[in-house]
């Protein structure tokens, strides 16, 4: 192949790339991408999402096995983490960057430019005034120019005219807004890559230390570094909740908070702190939020020899707004092994349709309904087991019982006993570390300032022209136009004309 053919291929490639870049960075493309981002986020609001409600996704996939699988292929259950969402997001980012930087350069030049000279025919402008004045000794043009300048206009004096312009802040604000927007996108992205988020359930009397192994679930960002985890810890002293009693919203939560003892490091002094909804604990760049709560019945299990094989408060998970809670207890040291499936009901009721259920979230009449199993818990099978589920495939049911606090269920045939000692409450905490948060907020504030300037500052031009007439007077014209659709042009031009009249007073034609 000849060198010239190569060259022309090269020019073609360059031309195509340039075309691609120009198209990508045009406002139309950015707008399209923006619209596309909005449309792309719609399925994320209509289908359950793994990030926020993983259980609902599992449920959906079970209910709609065929369509669910197809939807899943297209990432409909993790829209905001999907490659195509990221693609739109990144393209928008590039498009926006490519379009605002050249505008910044242009605006930089414009900021130092002079207002354009007066058009030939001022009377065609939408705001216009004219009058006759005597040619005076005062240099009208200079006087008017310095007066207008004092009113915040940028002025330029010509032979027979003054040109003025104001409202450059509009474009400055517009650029500020678009740059702030870029920065918001950047902060959101980098914050989630560098940060981490986890959840943990803590029972009253127990504690938590900020260490990956202590979390129930932990979701680090792609670039999260565990060595940045602050060494704080806390102990849950007391959880407190109140509920609406009576009325249409009976049982609705009214207040809850958790009293904890916090240490910023293992050796630090413990400090009492109250964590409530809307009042997270901020500690060393991390935030601890109270996100949920429930009950943990205290249960003692003895085996056939009367030996205590389990004594602890077991975390039960609430199933409804009235805290009908379910959980299990596993006693692998009993011979044979014992397992309990149970309901904890803070305000117990039983009926034929609903079975055992709670009618109010507060513990006014707590009760445990349990079914006790014996046999092989299956813990040695090597398959990891949920602490909230009992695998009864190799077990035999040995009885059902309901207990009030303090009561004991003696298992039949001397197989042991189960005592419901009382209950504790637990609180669940969400602990986040998001270094991009403050930056995103700051950029958001700048975006609002920029936006307000961009939309509310009027951009205007005004001119004054003097024309000598045959009878020795001069014709003074003041006119202006608005480069935007902001109101108030006529009033503003008439104020300028008013000030010009002080330097070139009107003469009445009768004189």
């Amino acid at each position: 192949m000849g060198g010239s053919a190569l060259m022309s291929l090269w020019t073609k490639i360059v031309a195509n790339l340039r075309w691609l870049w120009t198209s990508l960075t045009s406002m139309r493309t950015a707008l399209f991408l923006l619209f596309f981002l909005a449309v792309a986020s719609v399925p994320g609001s209509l289908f359950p999402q793994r990030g926020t409600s993983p259980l609902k996704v599992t449920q959906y996939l079970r209910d709609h096995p065929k369509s669910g699988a197809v939807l899943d292929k297209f990432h409909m259950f993790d829209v905001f983490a999907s490659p195509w969402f990221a693609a739109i997001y990144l393209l928008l980012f590039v498009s926006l960057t490519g379009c605002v930087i050249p505008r910044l350069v242009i605006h930089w030049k414009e900021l130092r430019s002079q207002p354009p000279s007066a058009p030939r025919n001022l009377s065609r402008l939408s705001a216009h005034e004219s009058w006759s004045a005597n040619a005076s000794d005062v240099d009208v043009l200079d006087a008017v120019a310095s007066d207008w300048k004092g009113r915040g206009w940028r002025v330029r004096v010509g032979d027979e005219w003054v040109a003025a312009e104001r409202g450059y802040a509009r474009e400055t604000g517009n650029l500020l807004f678009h740059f702030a927007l870029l920065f918001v996108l950047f902060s959101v992205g980098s914050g989630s890559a560098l940060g981490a988020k986890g959840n943990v359930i803590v029972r009253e009397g127990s504690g938590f230390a900020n260490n990956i192994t202590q979390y129930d679930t932990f979701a680090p960002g792609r670039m999260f570094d565990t060595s940045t985890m602050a060494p704080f810890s806390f102990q849950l002293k007391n959880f407190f909740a109140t509920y609406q009693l009576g009325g249409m919203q009976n049982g609705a939560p009214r207040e809850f908070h958790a009293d904890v003892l916090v240490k910023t490091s293992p050796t630090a002094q413990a400090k009492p702190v109250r964590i409530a909804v809307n009042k997270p604990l901020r500690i060393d760049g991390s935030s601890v939020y109270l996100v949920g709560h429930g009950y943990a019945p205290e249960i003692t299990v003895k085996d056939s020899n009367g030996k205590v094989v389990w004594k602890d408060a077991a975390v039960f998970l609430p199933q409804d707004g009235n805290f009908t809670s379910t959980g299990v207890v596993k006693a692998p040291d009993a011979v044979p092994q014992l397992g309990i499936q149970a309901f904890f009901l803070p305000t117990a009721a039983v009926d034929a349709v609903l079975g055992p259920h709670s009618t109010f979230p507060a513990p006014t009449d707590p009760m445990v309904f349990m079914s006790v199993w014996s046999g092989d818990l299956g813990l040695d099978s090597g398959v990891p087991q949920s602490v909230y589920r009992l695998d009864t495939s190799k077990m035999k049911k040995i009885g059902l019982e309901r207990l009030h606090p303090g009561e004991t269920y003696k298992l039949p045939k001397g197989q042991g006993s189960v005592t419901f000692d009382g209950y504790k409450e637990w609180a669940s905490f969400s602990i986040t570390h998001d270094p991009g948060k403050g930056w995103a907020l700051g950029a958001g504030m700048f975006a609002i300032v920029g936006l307000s300037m961009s939309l509310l500052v009027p951009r205007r031009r005004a001119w004054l022209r003097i024309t000598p007439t045959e009878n020795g007077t001069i014709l003074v014209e003041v006119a202006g136009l608005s480069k935007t659709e902001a109101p108030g042009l006529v009033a503003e031009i008439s104020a300028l004309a008013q000030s010009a009249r002080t330097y070139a007073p009107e003469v009445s034609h009768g004189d």
Partner: protein
Amino acid sequence: MAINETFAHASNIMVYGAMTTLTGAMGAFAIALAKGRRLESIEETVARTSSSSHQTRMGATTTLERPAVSTAVTTEDGLGEGRRAGNIGMSLTWLSAIFTGMSMLFRGLSAHRLPWGNMYEFSIAAGFGVLMAYCVMSLKRDLRWLGLFIVIPVLLDLGLAITVLYTESAQLVPALNSYWLAIHVTAAIVCMGSFAVGAALSALYLVAERVELKVADGQEPGRFAALAERLPAADRLDLMAYRIHAFMFPLWTFAVIAGSIWAEAAWGRYWGWDPKETWAFITWVIYAAYLHARATAGWRGRKAAIVAIAGFAAIMFNYFIVNMYVSGLHSYSGLN
């Protein structure tokens, strides 16, 4: 603290009061509209805008500053009845705004908190927002011709609130117990009210533009002519709608940011693509697209108006469909 039932009851009575005065306002505005005529005839508008240069467009800007000229309620010969009816409508609308405001006040006094805790209360607040936006805007210019298109939706909103959405006065669920709620919701209500007026103007724009285009083409003006003759010229409707949206968009941006500050404190993340947040984002993007569309020559007018209406439709979707049918963290409808 216990609920004060007297205030709760008074609050409900105020809603019925507002519905009564709004019904009166509806009748009065209907008469005002029927008796009104635009001052610039459709033919004149067509002649003016067919030479549509930048200057004439900006000419419309100046004309807008003289409200008596651009409104349709009265003509030189038909002065009187229509204007009187319009005045009655305006007064009744102010009264309705006061009644809904009192309803909110009493509700707040009854529950000892800001009265924005569930959908019933939001609907009352939204009705108040729309009425206030309209009343405040009408202080600067004559908007009697628009009244009918404001009071009918508000009447429907209040009716829906008191029947379907009604929730007893009660205290708040803890997540709503924050001063960011006050800031976020106040801003959102002001924006929602203004965007409702903006959407009404955009819809009327579509009517007026259609008729003007037909006349410009030399066709029969069609069945909407009777309405278009009673409205300002299309370009003015467009400009009014633009100014409302442009003025409110920064506040809407602020409302979204305030919401994310509140979300950060309540739920541990400032943005989590909760359905409600997703739709707030969609709405924001649509209005941003509207502003760009207005700035892009080929998109002025009809396309921009449709985008503005789509923005309001997204607000409505967020309000009714997402609140009631899509579950998320923002489940405060108070309905079960």
